């Protein structure tokens, strides 16, 4: 059986015009799933989802109840006034996007930072160093963000609202998948690599192109020549997404402030000999300040004293 046949079977069943065989297939599907579900004991394995869904339902329920439980003995004129105000509020609410431009957030990483951002639809984006991501406080219909630099996107599936990444040279369209976009504007190459799902890429070159990529494929756009190609069987590198800070031959006088900024601590280092030494390496998101300090003190034989959020290096 192929996809089209299944589609027809499902469609016929929903429309109530299945053949005997088609009906039997769907009913067997139900029967087997039910039997498998009956076999599965409830040991609280889905409790997290259970609580989440109940919360969602309650939100809907309370909204409905609140509307119903409004006191009915208002005077006639008060009703009219209330209706007018309500009408105005509803209209204002409906047109709020036209009245006020959407509020945008901008997240920027410097040359040492890697940052994880959670979007309003709970998709996650990991921004690599020297990147900038711009997204609205709330998505209305189409989900659209602007990127400069490199980022890994893990997009929550929503067939009704496609997700669009606008970069300097590329535009990426998806419904829900994970992929890497690297388009810094000034770099020679702009890339889109797909980790899961399907991704559509539009490139603005001499001849604007549009391609659909599958997992393991990478779209490469040579900026100056305005040409694009698709590479296959690429291991999309997302190792960097686990990182927090990345340093390459960076003087400690720069490393310390970067750590301080990311981990919200204060670091004092007055020894100029120490500050001149350079550090190469990266710290991961799961590393806490103690581990980072331990790594640095072992690497350079430093004496580090921590009191509250103040750290002194000698």
């Amino acid at each position, binding site marked *: 059986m192929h*996809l089209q046949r299944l589609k027809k079977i499902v469609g016929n069943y929903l429309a109530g015009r299945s053949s005997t065989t088609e009906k039997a*297939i769907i009913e067997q599907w139900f029967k*087997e799933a039910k039997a498998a579900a009956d076999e599965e004991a409830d040991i609280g394995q*889905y409790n997290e*989802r259970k609580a989440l869904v109940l919360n969602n339902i309650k939100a809907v329920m309370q909204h409905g109840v609140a509307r*119903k439980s409004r006191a009915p003995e208002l005077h006639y004129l008060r009703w009219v006034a209330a209706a007018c105000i309500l009408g105005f509020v509803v209209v204002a609410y409906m047109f709020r996007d036209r009245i006020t431009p959407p509020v945008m957030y901008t997240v920027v990483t410097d040359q040492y930072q890697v940052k994880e951002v959670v979007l309003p639809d709970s998709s996650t984006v990991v921004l690599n160093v020297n990147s900038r991501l711009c997204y609205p406080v709330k998505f209305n219909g189409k989900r659209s963000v602007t990127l400069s630099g490199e980022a890994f996107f893990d997009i929550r599936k929503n067939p009704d609202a496609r997700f669009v990444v606008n970069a300097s040279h590329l535009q990426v369209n998806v419904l829900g998948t994970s992929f890497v976009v690297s388009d810094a504007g000034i770099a020679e190459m702009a890339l889109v690599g797909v980790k899961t*799902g399907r991704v559509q890429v539009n490139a603005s070159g001499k001849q604007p192109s549009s391609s659909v990529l599958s997992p393991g494929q990478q779209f490469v756009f040579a900026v100056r020549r305005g040409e694009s190609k698709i590479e296959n069987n690429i291991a999309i590198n997302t190792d960097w997404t686990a990182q927090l800070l990345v340093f390459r031959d960076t003087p400690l006088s720069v490393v310390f402030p970067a750590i301080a900024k990311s981990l919200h601590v204060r670091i004092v280092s007055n020894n100029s000999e120490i500050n001149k030494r350079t550090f190469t390496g990266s710290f991961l998101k799961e590393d806490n300040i103690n581990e980072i300090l331990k790594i640095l003190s072992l690497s350079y034989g430093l004496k580090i004293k921590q009191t509250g959020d103040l750290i002194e290096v000698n």
Partner: protein
Amino acid sequence: MSAGRTTELSDTELMIRIQHSDMEAFSLLYHQYWHPLFSFAHKLLRSYDDAQDIVQTVFISIWERRETIAIQQSVESYLHQAVRFQSLKKLESLLSSPENIDRIQEELLPTFNDILHRMQEQDLLKQLEKEISGLPPRTQEIFLLSRQYRLSIAEIALKLGISEQTVKNQLHIALKALRHSIAIILICSVN
């Protein structure tokens, strides 16, 4: 935790209280049926997220239609029926979006192909049974003794008090009559 309390109230009583907008009764019903419904939807669509959406839709729809809802059968089968319907609708929408091709090819189509395959096999066995029952009674008996009970020709001859040659002749008649169905079954079971 809530299981002790739900047993005090039958599903029908819960539904009556829900019809009177009793949120606590709704909560009890939810806790009672969350697991079987979620698990059912998950086995159907092989996705926890989809199963979650489906159960949520079903319960919200019950609450929203509580005043007009008329449940003919048991609450349990009503809820299962609702999950079946929502799952089918979900499957239909999955099948219409190219985004999900991989998931359908890898997880959903094999399930349906497996079902279809087994159904075809069963049809053939049924047809074979039907053809066997169409044979003369004596031939039928000898054939079943030979194939189903795995008796040798000598054993059958001894058991029925007939000559071995008669048994051979009868088996030959049976196999000749059934060869078409048997061939198809052999071909299918090899695949």
